[in-house]
């Protein structure tokens, strides 16, 4: 059974380590072992059976793609958090300007100018979020 394990290890060599990778590796190994047992039950030599199981396994890239896709939703969440943070942050900054404006210089309205500057922050975050959606 050693060559089966070596083969599965080799298949998964280029996939980044993760808990999921280990569980799926374990699962595949167990099922392949059972397949080999079955083939031997049909009168095949152990070496033949292992070779057949390995050849019939197919292309690892399919599994690789599925494993890699899992990381995308995490990124999506980050951009949403960034957007929320930028909205609340800019609201706080703007309200500080509004307060300073009306408290110290109520005769002159100037808070609009820094407000436009600050609005670039949530705006850029919004488009970044839109792109990842």
């Amino acid at each position, binding site marked *: 059974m050693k060559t089966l394990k070596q083969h599965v290890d080799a298949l998964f060599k280029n996939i980044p380590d993760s808990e999921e990778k280990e569980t799926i590796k374990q699962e595949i190994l167990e099922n*392949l072992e059972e397949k080999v047992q*079955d083939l031997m039950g049909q009168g095949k030599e152990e070496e033949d059976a292992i070779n057949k199981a390995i050849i019939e396994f197919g292309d690892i890239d399919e599994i690789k793609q*599925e494993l890699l896709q899992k990381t995308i939703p995490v990124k999506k969440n980050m951009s949403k958090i960034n957007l929320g943070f930028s909205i609340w942050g800019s609201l706080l900054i703007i309200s500080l300007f509004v307060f300073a404006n009306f408290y110290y210089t109520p005769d002159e309205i100037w808070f609009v100018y820094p407000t436009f500057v600050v609005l670039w922050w949530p705006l850029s975050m919004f488009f970044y979020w839109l792109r990842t959606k």
Partner: protein
Amino acid sequence: MDSIILRLISEKDRYGYEISKEISERTSDRFHIKEATLYAVFQRLHRKELIESYYGSITHGSKRKYYRITPLGRAYLHEIAKEWQETKDIIDLFMEGL
């Protein structure tokens, strides 16, 4: 591919090798699923929450990972079956009498 595997899991809880064996048997060896495809499909169905997995009792010295269909999976399978019927009917319209 996804619907074939989902269908087999919907009949009863199954594990990986059982499914590939079942597919070969039902098609009288006309079709074999590659293990790589099978596990990729498991990952995909699991991510869409159409199936869930659990560990069964110990056999052959290790625990088998079984898959079970979720209510969402059942609804999805129903939808797929309807769509497939529709597609088949339409293709049949054009392929008839050839």
